[in-house]
């Protein structure tokens, strides 16, 4: 046991010295393993914690903010929504199917462990250059993995987003979000209590899969990434489904004191965190752990990341009732230890004490780094630009990888199971899922525009929050809270750490201005391969609520409606898709985010929707105004005639924020209301016919637009 071995476990010299101080002796192999995973970036947030503390996490409707397995907000009628987004990036590069599948499984457990029935899954995916031959394989595996797991557990996958960029070539991002519903007064937490109480293991048996996964997720990839495949876990969605039903059945009794899933770092993190949070000690007898392999060592069992396992502290005497429920569901159930008053974790195996560590210093003396930051270099200035050719540019834009129809992907995800999906993927700016037995509905979205964040981390991250807020607003729902999934490169590089710090500042600014607090989140660093980092990607998962699901508005326009632009004429081409796809430049500053305007415009839109009379609503985002109009027409299968308007590229393709297109029966009335509210508005045209007629008289047939829009994914994946 020495410094060299510690380094192999991912602990640096300082950290190893700290281990020696805490232990007062040389740690055992198992003890060193426990320290190394608990102090890994993945589990300890040692590079990010100082920044995350600055995020706003409070609002009157927040029941539990960050620090629990997931965030909890009150949604009315005595109910709570429980949600979180989490990354599974590193495993998804090594083995896309299992990486993505277990990402879905892990986030589901974070949500149902708090007492919620999961009601919706979403995701945020980033892939490399479509021209890179590896991209197709990774897209295929990730989409199959998400579908394979989500479809089987019977939780509908209702939304998500996908970007392509060469910066993700060696490092795709798979961020999975789960939303659940629970009675607000029946939330289950992880803090252990009650000395002597039994500690119970349920779910799948422990194997040697995923050992040291958390450490793998805390390092860059080199050329040997393939050799790390044994650290990827294998998912079993069938067992997960049984685990959901068994846990919810047990939660209906009063048997549970505390419960947590065994996620990253498995038995180690769950037992250490549960006992640590409760200020008690814990003693584990590994001989009692259900195992699917023989001859496993204490080290292997403590660090295994076998999936679909939970750790539960029961009330004394509740073992019988709990065992009966898990046996009914044909799941393993074992009492593997008990709580103690020692404040230590003691691990016994085959008559020997394999680990004996004081819990307080393991948590309190975990490393915390104020890593140096450096500003991002300013974006390249915008060069000379071609004139916009509206029809041609629109057809090219709706066909580009970042805007093309995602139907090929959605068509592989079960979006209707549960019988509550009011707006399926692509039907509205946010997915709408009704709460079973109520009129209430949730509005759910995931958003981030990484090219904006790369150009200006603060503004780009504020934009991600604003877009999530806007997407919820555009359905008529009231935005309540977000979960943030921070995907960045190597934090030891000052520019990357600067991106992270800037993004946190941007999120904080937007959350405060929009009353949209952060209630849960996840950080994934070291997203680099061979020294090349991803685009900074703070993915935002947003949740809103509608008192009546019947009021939800989609984005599909119907014939005979006026199209109205709210929020002012666009003009900002910096970092726009038009600039990238048509002018061939990734340049300029991202669109500025005026949060006061954002709020004013959004509140007006929501009020108009609540008052009735808004047939469809879509925010102006990637691709700009003309793309937004095209998307509304394609979704509603109608054409439109657009009236006189500026012919500048910036007007039609600028990606200015705080703008919406509404389809209404009476455009004049909406213009008058907007004027009275001091909100700039413009009548764009009227829907109807078989094509989109532009102000210059050119007409694009809907069929042309649709075939361009739907070409990309089938061509990439099935050619």
């Amino acid at each position, binding site marked *: 046991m020495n410094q060299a071995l510690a380094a192999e476990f991912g602990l640096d010299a300082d950290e190893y010295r700290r281990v020696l101080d805490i232990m007062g002796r040389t740690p055992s192999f198992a003890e060193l393993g426990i320290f190394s995973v608990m102090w890994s970036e993945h589990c300890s947030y040692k590079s990010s914690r100082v920044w995350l503390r600055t995020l706003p996490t409070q609002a009157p409707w927040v029941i539990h903010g960050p620090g629990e397995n997931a965030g909890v907000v009150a949604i009315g009628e005595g109910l709570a929504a429980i949600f979180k987004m989490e990354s599974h990036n590193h495993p998804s590069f090594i083995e896309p199917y299992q990486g993505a599948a277990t990402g879905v499984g892990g986030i589901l457990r974070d949500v149902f462990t708090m007492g919620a029935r999961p009601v919706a899954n979403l995701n945020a995916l980033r892939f490399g250059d479509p021209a890179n031959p590896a991209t197709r394989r990774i897209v295929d595996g990730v989409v*199959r993995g998400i*579908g*394979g797991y989500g*479809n*089987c*557990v*019977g939780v509908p996958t209702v939304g998500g987003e996908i970007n392509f960029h060469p910066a993700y070539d060696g490092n795709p991002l798979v961020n999975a979000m789960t939303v659940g519903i629970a009675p607000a007064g029946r939330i289950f937490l992880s803090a252990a209590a009650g000395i002597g109480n039994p500690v119970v293991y349920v779910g799948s048996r422990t194997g040697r899969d995923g050992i040291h996964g958390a450490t793998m997720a805390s390092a860059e990839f080199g050329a040997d990434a393939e050799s790390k495949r044994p650290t990827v876990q294998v998912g*079993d*969605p*069938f*067992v997960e*489904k*049984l685990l959901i039903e068994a846990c919810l059945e047990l939660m209906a009794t009063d048997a549970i004191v505390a419960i947590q899933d065994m996620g990253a770092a498995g038995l180690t993190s769950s037992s250490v965190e549960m006992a640590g949070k409760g200020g008690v000690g814990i003693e584990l007898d590994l001989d009692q752990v259900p195992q699917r392999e023989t001859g496993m060592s204490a080290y292997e069992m403590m660090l295994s990341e076998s999936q679909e396992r939970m750790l539960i502290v029961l009330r004394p005497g509740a073992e019988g009732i709990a065992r009966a429920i898990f046996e009914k*569901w*044909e799941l393993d159930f074992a009492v593997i230890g008990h709580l103690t008053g020692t404040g230590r974790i003691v691990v016994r195996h085959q008559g020997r004490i394999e680990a004996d560590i004081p819990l307080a210093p393991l948590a309190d003396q975990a490393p915390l780094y104020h890593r140096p930051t450096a500003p991002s270099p300013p974006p390249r200035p915008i060069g000379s630009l071609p004139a916009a050719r509206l029809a041609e540019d629109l057809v090219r834009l709706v066909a580009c990888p970042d805007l093309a129809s995602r139907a090929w992907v*959605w*068509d*592989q*995800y*079960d*979006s*209707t*199971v*549960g*019988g*509550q*999906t*009011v707006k*399926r993927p692509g039907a509205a700016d946010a997915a709408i899922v*009704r709460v*079973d037995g109520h009129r209430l509905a949730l509005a759910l979205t995931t958003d981030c525009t990484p090219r904006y964040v790369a150009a200006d981390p603060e503004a780009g991250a504020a934009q991600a929050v604003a877009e999530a807020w806007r997407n919820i607003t555009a359905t008529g729902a009231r935005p309540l809270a977000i979960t943030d999934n921070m995907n960045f490169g190597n934090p030891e590089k000052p520019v990357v750490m600067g991106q992270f710090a800037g993004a946190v500042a941007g999120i904080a600014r937007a959350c405060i201005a929009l009353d949209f607090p952060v209630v849960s989140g996840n950080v994934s660093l070291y997203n680099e391969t061979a020294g090349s980092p991803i685009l900074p990607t703070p993915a935002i998962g947003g949740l809103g609520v509608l008192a009546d*699901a*019947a009021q939800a508005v989609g984005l599909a326009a119907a014939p005979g409606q006026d199209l109205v632009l709210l929020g002012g004429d666009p003009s900002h081409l910096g970092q726009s898709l038009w600039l990238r796809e048509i002018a061939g430049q990734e340049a300029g500053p991202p669109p500025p985010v005026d949060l006061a305007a954002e709020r004013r415009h959004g509140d007006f839109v929501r009020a108009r929707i609540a008052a009735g009379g808004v047939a469809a609503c879509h925010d102006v985002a990637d691709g700009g105004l003309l793309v937004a109009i095209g998307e509304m027409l394609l979704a509603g299968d109608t054409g439109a005639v657009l009236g006189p308007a500026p012919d500048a590229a910036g007007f039609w393709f600028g990606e200015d924020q705080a703008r919406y297109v509404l389809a209404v029966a009476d455009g004049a009335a909406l213009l008058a209301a907007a004027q009275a509210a001091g909100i700039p508005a413009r009548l764009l045209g009227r829907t109807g016919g078989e094509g989109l007629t532009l102000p210059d008289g050119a007409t694009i047939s809907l069929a042309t637009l649709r075939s361009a829009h739907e070409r990309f994914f089938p061509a990439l994946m099935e050619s």
Partner: protein
Amino acid sequence: MRAGIVVFPGINRERDMAIALERASGRAPRMVWHRETDLQGLDLIVIPGGFSYGDYLRCGAMAAQSPVMESIRAHATRGGHVLGVCNGFQILVESQLLPGALLRNASLRFLSMDCHLRVERADTDFTAHYQRGQVIRAPMAHGDGNYFADDATLDRLEGEGLVAFRYVAPDGSVTAAANRNGSARSIAGILSPNRRILGLMPHPEDLVDPLLGGTDGAPLFEGLAASLAA
């Protein structure tokens, strides 16, 4: 109508089915755990969709060996009504309560989208509230919905009028494009010879509420409720 929904480990559309049945009949169905064997008093047994036993062997093969299946067989022999949807259809086929097999989709991908179905006969208790030839919409969500049987069996099914639903284009025509999972003769659902057992792949239970996109599935349950009113 007293309906029971059979729950095998891994079934996941039992709540959707319960909503549709209660909406049509005004009576909450009984949830029947797969180890139960007493189905007395039930007019209709429903095996809903999902992934029984993870579909890890062949879809439906494990569930077909469950204790409750003997009771379902007895119920069917007594002339009782049985509805199997998606995984439920697969289980009925594996139990040989219906002929044929459900293979991997021709595309080898999971398919989740609305499809159009043509009602092939309206003189059954399942389809009494539809018109013959009517085209209805229903969500489908399956990886193994590619109906297969040998030609003799298919000819018999057609000859005896036991094809209940076919995948069609919105105008009712049978096309290859509308038959996305590759089913033999575009078959989406079949009946037993006494027309009291129906198995089908798509999910009428997920389209019974205008708020959720339509009510094309509702007449199936309303027809059953009317036929089995007690």
